[in-house]
Each structure stands twice: as C-alpha cells, then as structure tokens.
C-alpha cells in the first residue's frame, strides 16, 4: 500500500526548476532511500512533500489523500514528520524543550512519549537541561530525530541524517532508523552516503532532478553501471 | 507674481531632491545597496561647498561664526569639491561596511549619517556647530537682481539634473552599468563570473555619493544657510527613500517623478492645511505631512513596491 506518492512533480526556487517531472513512491512499512549526489534535488523533494515549497506542477499524495501544497504546520498533523538536514534543532532551547516543541500540537500529556524518546536515545538523557546548540554533532542528530518522534509519526522524512558524523555514529543512526522501521514507522530516507542502501528495502537514484534508476538495494548494488557512477564502486 | 515665485521655489527644491533620488537610484536601484545614510553625504556635500566657497569671517561676524577655513573659491569648484569629498567619505564607509550583509549595511549607514551630523553639531570649530553657516555664496549673486535670482538658480539646478540624468542613462547601458545590474540580481552569479563584486559596489557607492554631494552643495547655495538640524534622518534620508519608492526604483525618470510628487505633497499640504485649520492649530499643522508621507511610504511599499513607473525593462538587453 502506498504511503507516500509524488507524481510528475516540477519544483524549484524562483525561476529555477530543480525537479523535472519526478515520480516516486514509498510503500507502507518500508524503508525507501533516495540516493544522489550534491545538487541533485534531494532536499527539494522533501521540502516539496512537506509543503515548505509548493510544486509548480504535479501532485503529492499521502495515505491516498492529495496534500499538494499543504503548508508544513498542517502536514505535521497528518502523521508525517520531517527532519531537515541543517538547522534541525532549536539551538537556543534545551534538549528537553526541543522535545517539548516536537510535541507542540499534541493535546495530551507528552511526558510518557518523551521518556520513550529518551530511552530510544539514551545518550540524550544526561543532557536534558543542556542547551541544544552546545551538543556534539551526533547528539544533535539524535535530538533532531527525537523531536520528530514526539508526535508518534507513522512516517519519517529524513534528510541526510549521516551528515558530518563519524562512521560509528553513522552506523548508530542507521541502526536506530531500522529499529524504528521494525516498530512500524515508514521511513523515506534521503542520503548521499551509499551506506544508506544497506538498510533500504527499495531505493531511487536521483541526479539533476530526475530519476536515474530504481530497484531493491540488491539490484542497484549489483548493477555495474550504477555501482560505478553512483555508488563509488 | 507670488504664485510664480512659489512654483519656482518648489521646483528648485524638487529638482535638488531629484538629484538626490538619482543618487539613491545608483545605490539601491542599480546595485541593491541599502543606503540609509543619505543625510551624511548631504551634509558633507553641503558643508564642503559652503566652506570652500566662503570667505573667512572678519570683524564682528567672526565672533558669531566660527569656521575652520574658508577658501573663497568660485561656486562650481565648490560643487566639484562637494562631490569629491562626498565620494571620499563613501569610499571610507564602503571599506568599513560593504562586507556586512544588507540589513546591517542599512543600519550602519544610519549610524554613520547621525554621527556626521552630531560631529558637525558639536565641533564648533569646524563649521560653527549648531548655529551653522550663514551667508553662503550664491553664484552670480551680486550680478543678478534678487527678484529674478531664483529663476536663474532654477536654471542652474535644472542643468545639473539634466546632465546627471543623461550621464546616468549612458552609464547604465555601458558594460559597467550592466555589471551593476547583474550584481543586484544575483551577487553570487556575478562573482562566479569573475567580477570583483566588492570593487563594483564601492564604485557605485562612490558615484551615488558624489551625486548626493552635488545635490547637497546646490542646496547649501540655494538656502544660503545650513545647520546640522537640516541633515536629520527625515529630511535628509527617508524622504528621499519615499521619493524613489513612489516614483520607481531602478528608473531615473521615476526618481525625478517621485521627487516632484513627494515634494509637492510635502510643501503644498502645509500650504493647504494652514488655510483650512484654525489658527490655534497652526504650529502643529506641518506635522500632518509626517503622517501623509508615512502612510504614503507604507502604502507604496506594501502595495506597489516598484513605484509608479517601475523598473525599466529595456536596460537588461545583453
């Protein structure tokens, strides 16, 4: 069952189009990875889905519903959460306050959920009262994802969570993502790092705003051409 | 006869402000520089011209008017030096502030202009402090009869307006002008093209400032007396921004049109209001202009930021 689907999306900034009639799909319960080099339009895809920018053409469907152009504050209420690549935490607020803000649209008591998030990212527990901007790169990434988890999302959009992290931290993050997926969260993961293929059920390769290839992680890794150009083999 | 004189005075001031607007157009309209310190260049131009063309006060006058120097130069040299000094100050300011991001540049410029004004106000030795300079030399002032002098001066000012207008229109179509426009559109791309963005901005800052210096000089010789209170932010800076915004940013015709419209509103409303309003209110009536101009600025920036004429399309023909 398709959880998220974009059809023939043309999107960009000002007069510049970044995405050229792009279509892709994320099935429920899967981890889908979008791989591509810098400037291929990966972030634009996520921004278009979440309503940060409106597509010039094409549609975005979530749970079968047309959500094209819905503003971010409303998309957040649909069960989808987005973790941007940069500036993805509230640096001036404490770790705990960041999570509180993640739960902003909840009516109920968010505290049980917050404790769960701390259990999920135990390293953050000691730094509850620390200013988020003072955290190390790895912790910041965990906090960024933690903020998104506060709403108990059905689906997560992650923009290059491995950016600037040491290899062992990258492994940690991907492991956490897989755990989330096993708990039932659909994941749409955008990455430059080919390591992201290892946990993906399905993957797309994006270049110049166009889909270059798609398939299961195995299929893509076995393909010589793709392996050479995109996966650095 | 009175009405004609009124119009002539109006036209002189409107034309002087038109020159200021064209100067601002070089900064903001062409290059995207936020100059909120026009009053500073205004002051420098006015004072330079006044001091360079004045004689050192002697006798009784010397106790009232203190100034650092007086070179007794002819009018045109006064204007020239006004432009030069204004340009120099612009270069200094540019070296200091051009590397700052836009908003900060704007605010810095306000601060610089205010500092210049305060400096002239406090340092009496320079140009008589708060009392300012009087008796500024009028070109051919001894030759032409007072009754007709303004007509002559209007002619002088209009010549400057036309010269500057045509020079700028030529300039903007030159390769140099095109680089400026490119910088305004997309600085990053212009830099990628190998243009030394900083240098171009500095040149633009200097050019616009020189034009403003000329306007300042023309003002000084027209009003024959200047004090630091003239160069305060409202009259010296923001009214010019209103003129350019209303008339058309990026367009010299718009700059001139905007100057005439806003100055008309400014000077005529007082006239009209004083006729309507009871005498007891008379001292406050001039402030209605503040409200009118303020609302004008808000309305135009909110509803029609391009101004009445809007930007010229033809210029970007590559």
């Amino acid at each position, binding site marked *: 069952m398709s959880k998220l689907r974009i059809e023939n999306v043309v999107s960009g900034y000002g007069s510049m189009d970044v995405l050229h009639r792009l279509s892709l799909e994320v099935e429920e319960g899967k981890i889908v990875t979008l791989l591509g080099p810098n400037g291929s339009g990966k972030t634009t895809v996520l921004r278009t889905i979440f309503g940060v920018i409106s597509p010039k053409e094409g549609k975005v469907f979530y749970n079968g519903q047309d959500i094209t152009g819905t503003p971010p504050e409303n998309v957040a209420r649909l069960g989808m959460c987005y973790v941007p690549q940069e500036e993805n935490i509230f640096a001036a607020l404490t770790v705990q306050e960041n999570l509180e803000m993640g739960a902003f649209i909840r009516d109920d008591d968010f505290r049980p959920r917050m404790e769960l998030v701390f259990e999920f990212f135990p390293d953050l527990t000691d730094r509850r009262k620390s200013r988020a901007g003072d955290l190390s790169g790895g912790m910041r990434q965990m906090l960024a994802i933690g903020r998104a988890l506060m709403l108990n999302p059905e689906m997560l959009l992650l923009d290059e969570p491995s950016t600037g992290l040491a290899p062992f931290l990258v492994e940690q993050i991907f492991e956490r993502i897989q755990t989330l997926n096993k708990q039932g969260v659909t994941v749409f993961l955008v990455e430059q790092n080919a390591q992201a293929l290892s946990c993906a059920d399905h993957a797309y390769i994006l270049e110049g705003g166009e889909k270059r290839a798609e398939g299961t992680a195995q299929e893509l890794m076995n393909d010589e051409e793709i392996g050479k150009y995109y996966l650095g083999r | 006869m009175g009405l004609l004189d009124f119009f002539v005075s109006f036209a002189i001031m409107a034309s002087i402000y038109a020159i200021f607007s064209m100067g601002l157009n070089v900064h903001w309209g062409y290059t995207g520089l936020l100059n909120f310190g026009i009053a500073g260049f205004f002051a420098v131009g006015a004072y330079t011209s006044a001091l360079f063309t004045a004689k050192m006060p002697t006798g009784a006058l010397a106790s009232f008017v203190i100034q650092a120097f007086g070179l007794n130069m002819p009018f045109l040299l006064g204007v020239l030096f006004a432009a030069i000094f204004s340009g120099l100050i612009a270069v200094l300011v540019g070296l200091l502030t051009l590397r700052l991001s836009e908003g900060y540049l704007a605010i810095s410029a306000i601060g*610089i202009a205010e500092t210049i004004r305060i400096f002239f106000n406090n340092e009496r030795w320079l140009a008589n402090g708060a009392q300012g300079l009087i008796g500024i030399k009028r070109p051919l002032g001894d030759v032409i009869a007072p009754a007709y002098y303004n007509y002559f001066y209007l002619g002088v000012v209009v010549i400057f307006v036309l010269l500057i207008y045509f020079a700028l229109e030529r300039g903007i179509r030159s390769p140099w002008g095109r680089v400026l426009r490119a910088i305004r559109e997309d600085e990053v791309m212009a830099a990628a093209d190998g243009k030394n963005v900083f240098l171009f901005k500095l040149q633009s800052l200097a050019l616009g400032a020189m034009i403003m210096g000329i306007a300042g000089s023309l003002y000084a010789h027209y009003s024959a007396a200047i004090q630091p209170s003239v160069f305060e932010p409202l009259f010296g800076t923001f009214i010019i921004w209103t003129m350019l915004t209303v008339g058309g940013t990026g367009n010299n015709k718009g700059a001139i049109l905007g100057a005439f419209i806003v100055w008309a509103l400014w000077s005529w409303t007082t006239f009209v209001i004083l006729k309507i309003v009871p005498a007891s209110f008379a001292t406050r009536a001039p402030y209605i202009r503040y409200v009118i101009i303020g609302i004008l600025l808000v309305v135009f920036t909110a509803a029609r930021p391009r101004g009445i004429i809007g930007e010229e399309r033809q210029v970007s023909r590559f």
Partner: protein
Amino acid sequence: MLEVIVYGIVLGSIIALGSVGLTLIWGITELFNCAHGDQITAGAYLALLFGGLLSRIGPLGNPVGPFSFSWGLLISFIPAIAVSIGLAVLVDRLVYKRMRRSGAHFITAFIASIGVAWALRGFIYIIWGADFHFYSQGLRAMVFLPAGIKLRTDEIFIMIVAWGSVAAVYLFLGRTKTGKALRALADNPNLARVSGINVERMLIWAWGLAGLLVAVAGILYGIETQLRPEMGWIFLLPLFAAVILGGKGSITGALAGGLVLGLAQQVSTLFLVPTYKPAVAFIIMILVLIFRPKGIFGRRTA
C-alpha cells in the same frame, strides 16, 4: 563615576525592555522594526493621556507614596499597555502580514516600518505638539544610598518595574508552552513550522508582548525624564545596537545588550559631550558587526 554607572543601569534597564520586543520580532519575522522607538514614545504619551484623565478623579491625582507620579498615572499603565498592544497587532495585521503573504523581501518591510514610524510620530506631534510634557511637576524625592550614591525614589520604582517585567517575561518565555514556542520560532522559524507551530497565531503573541514592553519602557522613560515626540528616535540607535550586540532572536542577549548600551552611553559622558551618545551606540554596533556579527549570544548552530 559611580553615579554615572548607576544612572547607566537605570537607562540600560529601559533600553533592555525595548530591546526584547525588537529582537523577538526580528528573530521570528526578519523584520527590523524601525517603528519600535516611536512605539515606545506612543506608550509614554498614551499614559500621559490616560493618566491625565484619571488624575482628575479625586484622590487619584495625589502622588503615590514617595514617588513623583500620581495614582492616576500608575493606573494608566493598564490602558496604555492595552492600546499599545492593540496598535502593534493592528499594524502587523494591516501591513506586515500582507508582506509575509506576498513573500516580500525583508527590506520592503523594513522600509514600510520607517513609514509607520513616521506616521506614528506625526500623530503624536499633531495631538500633543512639539513641546515637552511631564507626568508631574512635583518635587523629585531623593534617596541616599551608601557610597554616596544619590537616587531618585522614582528611579527605584523604575528599576523594580523594569526588572520585574523582565522577570515576568522570563517566566512567560521559559515556563509556558506559548513562551517556549515563541523562543523556538525566534530561534528557527522553519523548524517551528515543520513542528506544526502556527506562525501567524504566534505572531499575535509576539507583537502583543512587544506592545506591552514598549509601553512599559516608554512610561518608565517618561517618569525618568520628560516626554517629547522625538524621544523614539533617541532610542532607536541604542535599541538597534543592543539587539545586534545580543544576537538575533536572543532574549538574554537583548537584555544584556540593553544594559551594556545604557552603561556605555552614560560612561561616555565622562569624556564626551552628551549629544555624542547616539554615536557611541553606533560605534558599538559597528564594532560588533565587524568583529562578531552574530552577536554575543547569537544563533549558533552547526
């Protein structure tokens, strides 16, 4: 020297109050509000209006305890703040919201705020004229503190109200959900939207808070010295400098910045003519912009 420092703190407290609203709006909407100084002026004059009316009602005309102002003025804080908030929110809805909708450049809003400042000042001139006004003509009682410091009783009131307001703002921003959301919004507007926070609704709170603080700052300044229509302009450069010093969107920074500016300006009077004070503010601002443009507490992410 000590007196200069004490007076600097008094003035700094007032600047700090004004700076908080300015930095909040700047952090959330990218608008650097040039009308902020004139809004402070408006607050002061509103209190003059309401205070004057209230003081005519019998005993309300009497001075409050050891202070120079009347009960009428004290009560007038409330209507003055209310109108100030209403004005701030109204201008935002009428002017800036339109610009946000049409995706206008922040420069456009900056220029519009200049128009607002101008119009506001014009109204004040028209209604009250250009002369000075005072809240009261009574004697200003003094208090003698150790180390030979002389303070007016009014100044003690000012400090209590200023820092009481600051404490209240801190509690609001630090302990309430709305307050935290405002801070989040000021820190990272995009992420706040992504988290589901409704920017327009929050902006009403932000402008409301700004409106409250400028009114209090204005009235306190009026108690300290006198009222005149130009006073907003006197404030503007120190406000700008305080906010830039403190960093965009940082409340703590704005408060610290306000104090620093107040002190710096007063200390400068030891060797410069007082009319140079705005120049001092400007120099501080320029130094910060050149050497540490993010401000002391500025946004520091990756």
